[in-house]
């Protein structure tokens, strides 16, 4: 099951030369990851638009769910599988 990090802590995403996600940095630690799934969520475009690209990523320590907030360009960690 997953843990939902309620505050969606901001993270730094590391992309390679082709623009693919290869690692993210959280709480000072770098986690090299492989993207194993991705999808997009778009909601409430008439209200407060939500546009996120979700990435399910697997790394040496974690299987995690991170997203790119396309509204402001920030990256966040949403879930950790445990």
């Amino acid at each position, binding site marked *: 099951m997953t843990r939902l990090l309620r505050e969606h802590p901001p993270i730094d995403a590391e992309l390679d030369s082709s623009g693919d996600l290869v690692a993210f940095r959280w709480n000072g630690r770098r986690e090299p990851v492989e993207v194993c799934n991705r999808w997009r969520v778009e909601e409430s475009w008439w209200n407060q638009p939500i546009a996120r690209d979700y990435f399910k990523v697997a790394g*040496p320590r974690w299987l995690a769910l991170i997203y790119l907030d396309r509204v402001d360009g920030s990256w966040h960690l949403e879930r950790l599988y445990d």
Partner: protein
Amino acid sequence: MANPSPNVQAALATLRDRWGGAAPRWGGEVLGALAVASRPIPEDEVRPTGRPAIAPFPADERAIPTGFRALDAILGLGGLPRTATTALQGDGTSGKTTLGLRAVAQVQAAGGIAAYLDLARSLDPVEAAARGVALEWLVVLTPDTLEEALSMAAMLLQDRTVDLLLLDLPPLTGDRAGLSAAALGERLHRLAALARRAEVQLLVLEPPNLPAPITGALAQIAALRLELSRRAWIRLGRDVVGQRTEVRVSRDRYGPPGRATEVRIMYADGGPRDACLARDELLGEMAPGSGPRVAVPPPGAAHFGTAPPGGLRPVAGPSAVRPSPSPPKLALPVPADATSPSLLAPPSHSPGPRPVLRTLRGGADRAGRHAVDEWAGPGRQQVGAGAGGSAGHAARRSPPAGAGGAIPRP
């Protein structure tokens, strides 16, 4: 209060034989009535609901089963001790949260009330409910510091109103601690003693790299200490859908330590694809962190667009998924070691196995829903039907977190 008459005693004994911990108890007067408890079911039967069955493993009365037979088999009591402290240690994605919440569900199914000290601020009620936790019998406390958590826990224990206390420790940085580590270690000792006296089960989720006095205290107070370490990812195509975890008994007051076993934890996210999780031939393994990235996805699997340098560019059109002919329909059971999935497509007879290695849009976050229906092919209907099957489970108490079904909600 008078003791029950022999007739009442006999009746209570019969009920207890049949229902175990869910039977009414004598506490001066009859307390409670029968829980709507699932009867123990044989292992090869598909579990239609997320609630854990009372495990058939012959656990000692002093223990609650973990839900993983292989694990129960190596524990001295055949489960986690009811009136002592258990510590679950594990780094990263190791399964300790899954195990901890499963214990909560088991205690509740047996008629108990649980309290969750959510120091890590990461409890997801939808996930918990999907895995069989009864939210109405789970008190959630959100302390600011470990010190506050221990004070709250002590107050709860004094009145004995809960049966299980789960302390979810985050990796402790300075601001989350409160007191000094040594003082906290001391408080942990006292808490464990209080729990023993109150006969309340204490369960601690222990991340790595805690300050030494705290790990030291946990090592001493835990009657049972399990170390969880992930051995491999389990994959369905490209996606990671589960893990294989080794559980080692590093301490067991009730039996010999040092035993180890493996459990498989599957991440059912709710959707027709979950049925694939039961099909071993569809699953592959990968040691975590190894292996090259697959450049060309296998047919039917997700196709990931690439973006130009400078950042990810929104991919035109549906980014990942091609409509599938139909979701797989199986008659095979979910492996006994799987976490109860939040949703199981109802088993039905299939004309033959179909190798549909399709990773659906939508992961554990159920983010597959889109505000705008991008395509409506026959595949969509199938997805809807698959998800609709879950809605037929009227017995479910918490509504299943469904997949697909892209109806925009204002």
